């Protein structure tokens, strides 16, 4: 019965391994309703925000320009009202929830064991999840942008803006998706199946409460740009090319840090 044929083991390159892992994650992303639900949610957030702006309550008149639905006028780490806070940064709150559910299902279904059986290199998992999560948040940023423009038009707010600054603000926030995605992936590989905890933690960090709290203590300083929320706020309607570079540096550095830490944890911890 024994069959001892000669076996050839071809070591897959990093690119080939990553292609495999990315392929699965994108396949899953596009075949799950979760992604489309969050895309729609991202488009609806600005509508809800602008409805508040049109009302008679406390939030009435919180925007003087339609693009303030996308980003604040200046980098305000300390916020005084919803108008200063409610912008495209909210995508990162919902993005965290989506990433938590997405990765949590990997562990709950046990599929992660299939992945780790065939992928000996754990960094493949971290990098792939970060890229796919960042992609989904970028998509959410764009649907938020479309929703924001429609909401701005519906409220009759003026659209006058410096196009370069607007572009830098949007580009900065899009770039920040990478950093946020790596943070959320990192949180999720710590809590794994317990994605309720991951969702709660991602939500708290996504709201920027720790940075807002720090700003209340140390003041409205650009030093806070070292944090993901700080740089996300820095991508505002007065942004320039330097702001984009700040966002890029912050996002990439944190992505590397979280990916390295996440890979180390995956190598050292058992998979359940």
């Amino acid at each position, binding site marked *: *019965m024994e*069959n001892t044929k000669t076996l050839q083991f071809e070591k*897959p390159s990093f690119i080939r391994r990553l292609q495999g892992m990315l392929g699965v994650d994108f396949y899953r992303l596009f075949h799950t309703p979760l992604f489309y639900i969050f895309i729609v949610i991202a488009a609806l957030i600005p509508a809800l925000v602008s409805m508040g702006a049109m009302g008679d309550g406390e939030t009435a008149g919180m925007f003087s320009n339609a693009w303030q639905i996308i980003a604040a006028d200046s980098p305000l780490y300390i916020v005084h009202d919803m108008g200063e806070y409610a912008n495209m940064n909210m995508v990162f709150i919902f993005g965290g929830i989506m990433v938590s559910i997405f990765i949590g299902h990997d562990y709950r279904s046990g599929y992660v064991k299939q992945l780790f059986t065939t992928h000996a290199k754990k960094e493949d998992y971290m990098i792939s999840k970060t890229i796919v999560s960042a992609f989904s948040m970028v998509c959410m940023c764009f649907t938020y942008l479309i929703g924001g423009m429609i909401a701005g038009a519906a409220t009759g707010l003026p659209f006058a803006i410096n196009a370069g600054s607007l572009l830098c603000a949007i580009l900065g926030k899009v770039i920040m998706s990478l950093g946020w995605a790596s943070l959320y992936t990192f949180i999720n590989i710590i809590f794994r199946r317990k994605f309720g905890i991951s969702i709660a933690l991602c939500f708290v960090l996504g709201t920027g409460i720790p940075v807002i709290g720090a700003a209340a203590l140390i003041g409205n300083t650009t030093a806070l740009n070292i944090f993901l929320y700080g740089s996300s706020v820095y991508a505002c309607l007065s942004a320039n090319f330097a702001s984009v570079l700040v966002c890029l540096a912050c996002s990439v550095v944190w992505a590397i840090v979280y990916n390295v830490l996440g890979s180390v944890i995956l190598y050292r911890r*058992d998979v359940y």
Partner: protein
Amino acid sequence: MNAIEIRNLTKSFRGMYALDGLNMTVPQGSIYGFIGENGSGKSTTEKCICGHLVPDKGNITLFGKPYTDAGVRVRVGALIENTGCFPSSSVYSNLMMQAINLGLKDRNGEIARVLKIVRMEDNAKLQFKKCSLGMKQRIGIAMALLGDPALLILDEPINGLDTDGMRLMREILVDITKNYGCTVLISSHILGELEKIATHYGIIRQGKMIREIAASEMDNRSQVYVSLKTNDVQAAAELLRRGGCNVRLEEGELRVYDIDDTGRLSAFLLRNGLVPTELRKHKIGLEEYYVSLMSKEAV
């Protein structure tokens, strides 16, 4: 070459040793039956091989390479505890994800091939959560078979299967070993089923390998015995003992071990005035071997 070689593998959970210096050798092309009580460390060993658990110490090599080698691991298929399928996705989608993960080129062709092997060609569109237990086990095997695996690790794959399902699983495993050159490591409590297909056995107890044996060697070494009933069992036992036979009185009958010539035995008894009323030849199977080994170890 050996498909799996494990030396001094140790794994503990909060100070409790699940594996305690385990050694294991699985020859290439074999169907290795991995046997042990619940909690003896079978699943822990399999999870260590698959990289799901991080060993405290020890060495694992697969086909002569470290088990962390990406080239070897991409050729390992596993079904441990559950299939790892997404319940809301179809059978086809789940297989497609694994095919993409493995970087297979002809994905649809590969999926069709493995579905045919597990006789699930007509159920590709079925949602995974709507499949029966037997179907889920077969899908798990199909997942593990994608991408021409060199090593298949199956943890209790026949649990919960009906008679037909067990037969089918048996046929599949023999087929992939014979025709695809795959090595199979299979753990099971259903020793009767394992005995029909395994070429090698490993018996584990309290995290230690207590015996590794080839099925052929076990067959050769298996004790044969003759069970007999006579008009005076005690006298027959005494007589045979004096004649140098290994005799035991078990379950109301006399068992004469390591003798298979029933003719000589009955003639000997008759010559000494004892009439054999019942005489049957037996061979000790895997289950008896396992039980006797376990009872010896317990002493």
